[in-house]
């Protein structure tokens, strides 16, 4: 064990360790979890010189204020994030997608995500974390993952078990694109809704509600009228599934979703838009656009190629 660690001076709103998540546990009631915005997660690890599936710190809205104790370490922030670094007595603004070298007692102050939700902090080293089912990802609803399944708290220490040897400065130019049109495919219960309900769903604007978190994104807008049954026999859920409960307000399942649900599924978000969907902040407007399965597959391939291309530039 190295003597390197961060002290959390301020924890932030929802700061957790995340990685690629855990597979093959839906049947016992455990969702994937993992980093919400996968592209930014991967970029953070690549810039920090880590394996791509390494743990990172994920934060939402306001991030943590951390003080570093130890030898030299590189850190990098990805997302659309405003943050400051304090080294000796000088304080300056940091840029995302650019590594910074911290020395003993330097501080990093993650002030806020800018018109987005999630950001990532990776270090050139290995956090000392307990894995569950091969993943550090914290699921606060089920208390699964590292840190006993709880979000990070002020005054805690984040231990680092190993520092990377090579800590060259790395950076990449990347601008997060924002979207308002979320591409979807019809869900298995699309026909449970009235003609007007279907039309409203596909044509009207919805507002992202404050009651959104890693489990789900709630939407407000026209009430989607159900004409068949407001309940179905409980069945599996996936991230991206859009359920409409009896009150007519759609809910999009996100990475920590319950694995089984009994509300009709009006649609499913195309995988290509998932990373950008989770970054849409409460109060923002979104619209849905229907696409075919074959288009969704092609669009995802292109998105994935773009991600790989970005990673190869680092």
């Amino acid at each position: 064990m190295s003597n390197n660690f961060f002290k959390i001076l301020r924890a932030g709103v929802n700061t957790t360790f995340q990685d690629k998540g855990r597979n093959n546990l839906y049947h016992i009631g455990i969702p994937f979890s993992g980093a919400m915005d996968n592209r930014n997660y991967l970029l953070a690890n690549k810039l920090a010189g880590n394996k791509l599936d390494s743990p990172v710190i994920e934060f939402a809205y306001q991030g943590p204020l951390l003080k570093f104790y130890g030898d030299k370490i590189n850190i990098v922030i990805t997302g659309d994030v405003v943050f400051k670094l304090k080294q000796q007595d000088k304080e300056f603004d940091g840029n995302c997608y650019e590594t910074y070298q911290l020395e003993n007692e330097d501080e990093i102050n993650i002030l806020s995500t800018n018109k987005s939700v999630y950001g990532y902090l990776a270090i050139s080293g290995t956090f000392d974390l307990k894995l569950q089912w091969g993943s550090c990802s914290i699921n606060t609803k089920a208390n699964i993952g590292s840190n006993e399944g709880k979000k990070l708290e002020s005054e805690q220490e984040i231990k680092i078990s190993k520092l990377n040897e090579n800590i060259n400065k790395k950076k990449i130019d990347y601008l997060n694109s924002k979207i308002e049109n979320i591409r979807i495919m019809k869900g298995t219960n699309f026909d449970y809704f009235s003609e007007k309900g279907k039309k409203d769903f596909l044509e009207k604007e919805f507002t992202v509600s404050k009651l959104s978190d890693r489990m789900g994104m709630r939407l407000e807008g026209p009430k989607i009228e159900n004409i068949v049954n407001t309940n179905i026999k409980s069945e599996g859920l996936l991230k991206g599934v859009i359920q409409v409960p009896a009150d007519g307000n759609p809910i999009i399942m996100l990475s920590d979703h319950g694995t089984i649900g009994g509300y009709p599924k009006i649609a499913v978000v195309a995988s290509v838009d998932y990373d950008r969907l989770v970054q849409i902040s409460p109060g923002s407007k979104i619209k849905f656009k229907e696409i075919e399965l074959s288009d969704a597959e092609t669009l995802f391939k292109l998105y994935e190629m773009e991600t790989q291309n970005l990673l190869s530039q680092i």
Partner: protein
Amino acid sequence: MIKNISNLGDAALYCDFGTEVNKQINSEVIKYFNSIREKNIRGINNLTPSYNKLIISFDLKVTNFKEIKNEIEKLSESETQKIINKNLEIPVCCDASFSLDIERLEKKLNLNKDEILENFFNQEFFCYMTGFIAGMPFLGDLSEKMRAQRLETPRVKVPKGSVGMTEQFANIYTFESPGGWNIIGNTPLEVFQSSKEEEPNLVNPGDTVKFKQISLEEYKNYNE
């Protein structure tokens, strides 16, 4: 048999086994679930069996709907025969401090407490599925006279270990969670243990469960 396979988004198959909820259809779902798990089909990263559906999630980076659909259609009947199950006994204490909704049930079912508990403890349950929250078993079937709807307003916090009833099903809250089921008692047993990675769930689909009533004294001494 799978009646229909469709896509649920671009990264999952939705296998429909019918609309009814019964042991026979659910056993078919579980057979498919077990056999797909054993086959280790490339790209499949999650399976969610439920009463009469099986959702198969896959990694769109390595495969697609058409490929997985072909694989599933190739599975023959003989490959889907396997069903593993065990018989479990789960202790439940129905002390007034635990049976939060017994009065509601007395009214809704028009039965008194003794009759409700007698019915509940004398029957055997079948586990249809687990989930919603980690390890929560969905157990059926309660007889017609024992079927009540969910609470009109769900509780914000249902205590861990609570045993609840809704419609034809019973369940166990594996940890504190919001929920709307009618709570009749509490079990001291750990029904979900995340520290046991191999077998975190006490109850799995296909298992049979009998509840055994215990006193408050026995409940308190259970884990000592």
